[in-house]
């Protein structure tokens, strides 16, 4: 499969290898790639199941990172303490 993918890419002057595709993914996920890089990456992804899987795993990772806020939620007593400090600041 990898050999097949490589053969396919050799025929296309604008093709990129997996290492370059992975390096472009952060920009891709930020929608920050220029048109040429985006087309190159999307062309690579369409032909490479490994890089597609890696991108999917990055998306799962970002999903988990986005839920980290549920891990250390603030106890309501801490909110009360800070509001008490706020009250003192306003009185100053």
């Amino acid at each position, binding site marked *: 499969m990898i050999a097949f*993918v490589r053969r396919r890419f050799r025929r296309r002057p604008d093709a990129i290898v997996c290492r370059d595709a992975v390096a472009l993914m952060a920009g891709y996920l930020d929608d920050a790639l220029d048109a040429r890089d985006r087309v190159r990456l999307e062309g690579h992804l369409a032909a490479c199941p490994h*890089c597609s*899987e890696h991108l*999917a795993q990055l998306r*799962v990772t970002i999903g*988990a*990172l986005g839920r*980290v806020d549920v891990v*250390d939620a603030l106890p309501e007593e801490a909110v009360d303490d800070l509001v008490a*400090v706020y009250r003192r600041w306003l009185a100053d």
Partner: protein
Amino acid sequence: MLVAIDLRCAAMADDAELVAGLRTGDEAAFAALVREHHAAMVRVATSVVGSRAVADEVVQDTWLAVVRGIERFEGRSSLKTWLFHILVNRARTAVGKERRSGTVTAEGLDDRFDAAGAWASPPVPWSDEVDDRLVAERLAPSARRLIDELPDMQRQVVLLRDVEGLPADDVAEMLGLTAGNQRVLLHRARTRVRAGLEAEMDVR
């Protein structure tokens, strides 16, 4: 697209309400902001200063600066971005990094790829099995622990970007990074967290 615009309008309306509340000394508005952001601010400040006690001071200083400076908030960024700008500034000042730009050191050549740049050992597929919100929530405690194990700059970037969801440009500016370096650090951090989550899922 329309949904994104709706969400942004909703966030701006919330911001306007909170700002108006703070300007009149409304305790409920302050409490709402604290509930929303305090734990995250402590997390980010700790990642910059390396000590929980110093972080608590930095966060309290930040709240005071927000309360005193709310008249100057012009709404050019979201209230959250403004708040984290103040926080990161103060945290970096506390550890003497306010002028120094963040640097990106070279990491060893990526051994996941062969000499031709193809996968040396292709990713083991698991994304299909875990692609939903509940699983993201189940993985969150592991992600939290894995973040703590990252090198300083990677940890700060990934906390601000992926945990807090702040825009790339603002995060680069806060940490004194170029857009390119911000992206490299984010990429490395995500790659390490991905590998850590995979190890815990025991798919290999």
